[in-house]
């Protein structure tokens, strides 16, 4: 059991990396606390598996260091790091029985046979493999094989950490859910640091206490599922987490923030802060779940045009044009289905401002439905 620290870590598969694009992992520092259940979430090719293989030692990082409990392990081979890793596709030792497969990691480190027996039976019990123990691993189905692979990761309870590399890809949905619960239970029981790589946000949030979202070889946010949802630190997090993803539109920053004819008023210090950042463009983001759709006319709301409504069974997704920008809102079940010109507003606490894709942390920004004209008229008074 260990705390895993990544210190100024970077990795490139190229021999002579020169530009940032050459790096699969761009320089990052990160700490996985001891005993946590973490998910590493990101799209295919963002560097998740690379990062995992660096932690387990299968891959040597180009730069930076990996520390287990503060001790540098860069030079240690995987077999010396005492770490467990479960791969995306099942790996079983064909000629061995399920029992021998599960016993393999224990026997390799010389655990006495009576302890092997009790541990194997314990793990087999958890994974519901008890009645398969005497079978040859070769004849198992894909999901049973994957259970055996996972079992081999779980039999050693003294490991520094268990790394899962999309382990449930080959398993059918029903069992998937069950196994994820099992993993969570195992985690609670043994308190082993677990890092779970996935590209499925649901999988990540049901398994992990904290999720690291990876994008382009970098961890762009590390937080609880709730934090990722409510306060995405990066536009990618907003886009990737949630279904549908966050609405974004690019607003202009001059004396005020404007989006077409709409003025977005903010507190003075927020404006000052944005101005001091030197960027003329800011991105405004709001989640479809937080867009308020009014049933009737409302003077404080924006008038927008409905494009279409998707019925997803339990809820409906409304698509509308806000100043020419296609946006989505989630309608509650009992809400009437709007059409034509309707009124929406963006509650201030859920409206986020991004500069260069990163969140500008503020609670003071508000959107008003005032148009430029109205604002000017107001100023004139």
């Amino acid at each position, binding site marked *: 059991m260990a705390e895993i620290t990544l210190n100024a870590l970077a990795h490139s598969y190229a021999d002579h990396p020169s530009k940032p694009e050459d790096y699969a992992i761009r320089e990052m520092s990160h700490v996985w606390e001891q005993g946590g259940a973490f998910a590493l979430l990101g799209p295919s090719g963002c560097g998740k598996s690379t990062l995992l293989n660096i932690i387990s030692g299968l891959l040597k990082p180009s730069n930076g260091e990996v520390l287990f409990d503060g001790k540098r392990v860069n030079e240690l081979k995987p077999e010396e790091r*005492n770490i467990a890793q479960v*791969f995306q*596709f099942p790996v079983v030792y064909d000629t061995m029985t399920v029992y021998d497969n599960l016993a393999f990691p224990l026997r390799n480190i010389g655990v006495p046979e009576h302890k092997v027996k009790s541990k194997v039976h314990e793990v087999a019990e958890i994974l519901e493999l008890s009645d398969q123990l005497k079978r*040859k691993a070769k004849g198992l189905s894909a999901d049973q094989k994957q259970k055996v692979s996972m079992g*081999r990761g779980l039999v050693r309870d003294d490991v520094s950490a268990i790394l899962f590399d999309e382990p449930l890809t080959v398993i059918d949905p029903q069992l998937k859910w069950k196994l994820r619960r099992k993993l969570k239970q195992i985690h609670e029981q043994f308190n082993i640091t677990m890092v779970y790589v996935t590209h499925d946000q649901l999988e990540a949030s049901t398994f992990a206490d904290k999720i690291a979202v990876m994008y382009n070889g970098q961890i762009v946010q590390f937080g609880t599922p709730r934090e990722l949802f409510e306060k995405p630190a990066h536009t990618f997090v907003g886009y990737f987490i949630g279904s549908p993803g966050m609405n974004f539109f690019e607003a202009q920053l001059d004396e005020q923030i404007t989006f077409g004819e709409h003025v977005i008023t903010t507190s003075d210090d927020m404006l000052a802060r944005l101005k001091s950042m030197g960027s003329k463009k800011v991105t405004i983001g709001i989640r479809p779940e937080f867009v308020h759709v009014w049933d009737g006319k409302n003077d404080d709301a924006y008038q927008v045009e409905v494009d279409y409504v998707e019925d997803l069974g339990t809820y409906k997704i409304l698509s509308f044009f806000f100043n020419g920008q296609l946006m989505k809102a989630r309608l509650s079940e009992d809400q009437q289905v709007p059409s034509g010109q309707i009124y929406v507003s963006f509650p201030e606490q859920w409206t986020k401002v991004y500069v260069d894709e990163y969140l500008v942390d503020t609670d003071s920004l508000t959107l008003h439905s005032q148009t430029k004209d109205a604002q000017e008229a107001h100023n004139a008074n």
Partner: protein
Amino acid sequence: MQTKVENNKAWFLVMPVFLIVAFSAIIPLMTVVNYSVQDIFDPYTRYFVGTEWFKQVMLDSRLHEALLRQFIYSFTILAIEVPLGICVALMMPTKGRGASLALILVAIPLLIPWNVVGTIWQIFGRADIGLFGAFMAEIGVDYNYASNTTDAWLTVILMDVWHWTPLVALLCYSGLRAIPEVYYQAARIDQASRWAVFRHIQLPKLTNVLIIGVLLRFMDSFMIYTEPFVLTGGGPGSSTTFLSQSLVQQAIGQFDIGPAAAFSLVYFLIILLVCWVFYTTIMNMQKDK
């Protein structure tokens, strides 16, 4: 609705295969069967003799000895070439120029014609002009494949190992390359020893290529003719006279076509039987119990 056309056109489609098989296997084999049951004096004088040649062949002590030699020879070279081939394959580099170079070097013996191989070793082993023979003489070992039975056997086996281990090695090499990297990664995570990796990952995944390797090497070595013929001529005495050489002596040397044909058929059945035994044994070994 279309009516079903009934004709015999399908025969034309089957015909090519039928002809090829007939000319490559059935007709030659039947010719041999034909010889084996007749006593032929000249093309116009022949008598049906039933199983007489078979009885004679089965009781011929010269053939018994040749058969025994043949089995000892084939199993010896298998026992050497298979493990050695696996070792060579495991040691061959997997990436870069080294890999290509190793492949070419290993494949060279396979490209040399049989009788040339025999000639090479014949000269190689000679005490007066051969590198190996002269070396042995130099260090004081009395080595002479032409007069000493043990030396003759040693040379014949060494020659086959040199010539054919590369085949096993190349087959295993291809088998090893087909093992996904993730198996090795998992084994490292499981802290498996080098031996455990070989025993539980590499060897099981090599089973299929090894079946091919063992069968090919068995069949080829069981029918070996040219190399020992060129090297030792079957001697000293008849100590390295293997089955096919006995057969040739009988069929062409003595022109005993009938007994030779009967012998050929028995020979053929033995190879078939042993191959079947090998195949079933290996297949059974890897079955799910």
